[in-house]
């Protein structure tokens, strides 16, 4: 039998499922990917077919392993990372989904979350989360409210709930489990005890019998049919935090995609935010204590560049934003606050709408391109300020990943605006890498966190290059522009 040499990670994302195989140094050996359908039955509704996703996962797993000429015996462990909050209900007896999966972006629970407002402080205190359509709890409640028969079956434990990690673990190992980071996104788990909480369950109206068992992020949950240990599960943003080896309090990663997610490791005590951030579990390795994180979500960053491309036609590819922005030396006095669907962290103002402020006859498309890139940087700054205030820790470097890190001007602007170095790590696929790391730790493929740190290398670093006076002046202008987005939508 060949010696196991690699770790595989399934990255079950919002638009596709991927499987990436890594070697011991964290290098990518092979990648396989399949997209799944986005189902939009009504405005604001977004669904996935959980059966299709499972079939895709099985296929990419086989493809990534055999496509690289590997044999099952060479895979030492399999890890899972997944789109968070997306809610699947299935039948215990048959394993068949009973309803389409409700995706995290789906806003059908808007009215329901307003109706739960009396419990807002309970959720904030015990679950660490604000009431929002985003999380799984309201999605389960909505499904059970639609069909009394379904609720009865859920109460008898015949219909089960799971986020995507649970759904994949059920299909891979036959066990009904979830990892603690995914459970921390349901509004049903007490972030202090890390168990399902009767008060939260009662307030949300979800029966305990349908819930999976909460397990650590890294342990051997079971084995695949081919005997590969399934040994980690983490929500995607938590996996990126782990893949960036942010193991010490204060270490922070930021992933730049359509939106952006900053997570700061806050150590072994949950920090309840006073500044509009979420408290979430970062990871828990085996029987060790849980590591918590503060999370700041920014709704519109990369998608603003796409908007400039698709809605205004100022550029023909996202990368050209940098070329256009470099046709000028500065923003020409122009600021762009992309509050397209309100402002997320740290403001949480649903009445805000987008604004381009400071326009004069001097401003041209190059200045607007600058303002677009600066919008991502200033939104990051606002979240970092909130994190520093909540945690009492000071950010010393920002570890950036995601597609937008290819934009050098954005990375330099981030360093200028944050006044700390911005670092891009060598492996851009930090999400899958995080799941692989956790699975490799659980199975002894990697001995400890230090061996993972040794794998982390800087691919590039940008250092602050503007003076404090310029930074303060620009931040003041940005805040003035943000103020002008508020109170737009009349309630």
């Amino acid at each position, binding site marked *: 039998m060949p010696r196991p040499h690699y770790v595989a990670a399934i990255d079950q994302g919002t638009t596709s499922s991927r499987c990436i195989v890594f070697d011991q*140094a964290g*290098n*990518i050996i092979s990648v396989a990917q399949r997209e799944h359908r986005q189902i939009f039955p009504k405005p604001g509704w977004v669904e996935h077919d959980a059966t299709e996703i499972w079939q895709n996962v099985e296929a990419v797993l086989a493809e990534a392993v055999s496509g690289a000429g590997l044999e099952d015996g060479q895979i030492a462990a399999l890890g899972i990372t997944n789109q968070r909050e997306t809610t699947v209900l299935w039948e215990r007896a048959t394993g068949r989904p009973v309803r389409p999966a409700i995706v995290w972006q789906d806003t059908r629970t808007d009215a329901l979350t307003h109706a739960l407002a009396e419990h807002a402080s309970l959720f904030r205190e015990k679950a660490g989360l604000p009431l929002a359509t985003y999380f799984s709890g309201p999605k389960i409640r909505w499904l059970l409210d639609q069909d009394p028969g379904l609720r009865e079956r859920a109460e008898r434990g015949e219909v089960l709930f799971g986020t995507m990690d649970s759904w994949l673990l059920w299909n891979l190992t036959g066990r009904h489990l979830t990892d603690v980071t995914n459970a921390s996104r349901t509004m049903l788990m007490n972030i202090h005890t890390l168990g399902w909480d009767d008060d939260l369950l009662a307030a949300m109206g979800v029966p305990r019998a349908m819930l999976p068992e909460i397990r650590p992020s890294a342990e051997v949950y079971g084995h695949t049919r081919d005997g590969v240990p399934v040994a980690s599960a983490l929500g995607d943003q938590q996996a990126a935090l782990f893949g960036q080896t942010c193991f010490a309090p204060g270490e922070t990663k930021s992933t730049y995609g359509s939106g952006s997610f900053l997570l700061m490791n806050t150590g072994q005590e949950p920090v309840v935010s006073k500044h509009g951030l979420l408290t979430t579990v970062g990871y828990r390795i085996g029987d060790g204590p849980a590591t918590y994180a503060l999370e700041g979500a920014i709704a519109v960053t990369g998608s603003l560049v796409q908007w400039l491309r698709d809605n205004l036609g100022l550029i*023909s*590819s*996202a*990368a*050209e*934003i*940098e*070329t256009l922005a470099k046709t000028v030396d500065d923003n020409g006095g122009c600021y762009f606050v992309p509050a397209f669907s309100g402002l997320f962290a740290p403001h949480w103002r649903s009445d805000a709408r987008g604004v381009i402020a400071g326009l004069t006859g001097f401003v041209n498309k190059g200045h607007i391109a600058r303002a677009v890139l600066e919008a991502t940087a200033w939104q990051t700054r606002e979240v970092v300020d909130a994190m520093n205030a909540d945690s009492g820790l000071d950010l010393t470097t920002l570890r950036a990943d995601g*597609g937008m*890190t*290819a*934009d*050098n001007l954005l990375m330099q602007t981030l360093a200028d605006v944050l006044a700390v170095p911005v670092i891009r790590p*060598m*492996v*851009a696929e930090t999400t899958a890498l995080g799941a692989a790391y956790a699975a490799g730790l659980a199975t002894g493929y990697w001995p400890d966190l230090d061996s993972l740190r040794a794998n982390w*290398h*800087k*691919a*590039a*670093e*940008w250092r602050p290059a503007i003076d404090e006076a310029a930074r303060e002046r620009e931040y003041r202008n940005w805040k003035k522009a943000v103020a002008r987005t508020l109170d737009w939508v009349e309630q």
Partner: protein
Amino acid sequence: MGDTIQSVERAAAILRLLASGPRQLGVAELARALGLPKGTLHGILRTLVHVGFVEQDDTTGKYRLGATLLHLGSSYLDVNELRTRSINWADALAGRSRESAWIGTPHEGHVLVIHHVFRPDDSMQTLQVGTYLPLHASALGKVLLAYDPYGESITPPLQAHTKRTLTDPARLEAELAQVRARGWAAEMEELTEGEVAIAAPIRDARGLAVGAIGIRGAVERLAPGGDLHMEFVSYVRDAARAITRDLAR
């Protein structure tokens, strides 16, 4: 307005007409629309087909705009787009070779560094994106010269950066011929004493070299005893081929 060339004007009129709708046009239709004899049109159309600006349908014999013409306006590959499409492969190249990885494009008689990945040893390094390298004294530059689609030759004098820099245009030309023959370029302490570099061409969907990717490092690691380790050459060529494949999609 000064003198204009009539046949070029007529060619432009044909192209405009073919671009005006989705329909293919026959010689008779073109002749009628332009008020020109068919014989005159045949000569111009034959030339336009020859350069790929117009295509003739095999079955109907009618004419339509050619693929070459359609690509003319959109063929310029933005350097930031090139970086975005290359970034994973450049990371992998640095990871495998344990050396710094570089991507360069031609810019006004120099190599413009458009991407730079640090050597993965966490030593102090500074990002070199936006700096220039000499064409004749760098591996990236030699690749760009060897595959220059315009075939422009470099104008002497060639500045000596070290005692090993190629400053004789004839010797440089001979080396460029070798680069074309084997598909990669080496720089043996020609830019900086003690440093060696390797580079290979990145081609776009039309097969034109739009940039070069390579690695740079200490001579003791890449070429101990003066001979390049060929495994480094294969890493560089693998990365160049992977990016070329991506750009063709």
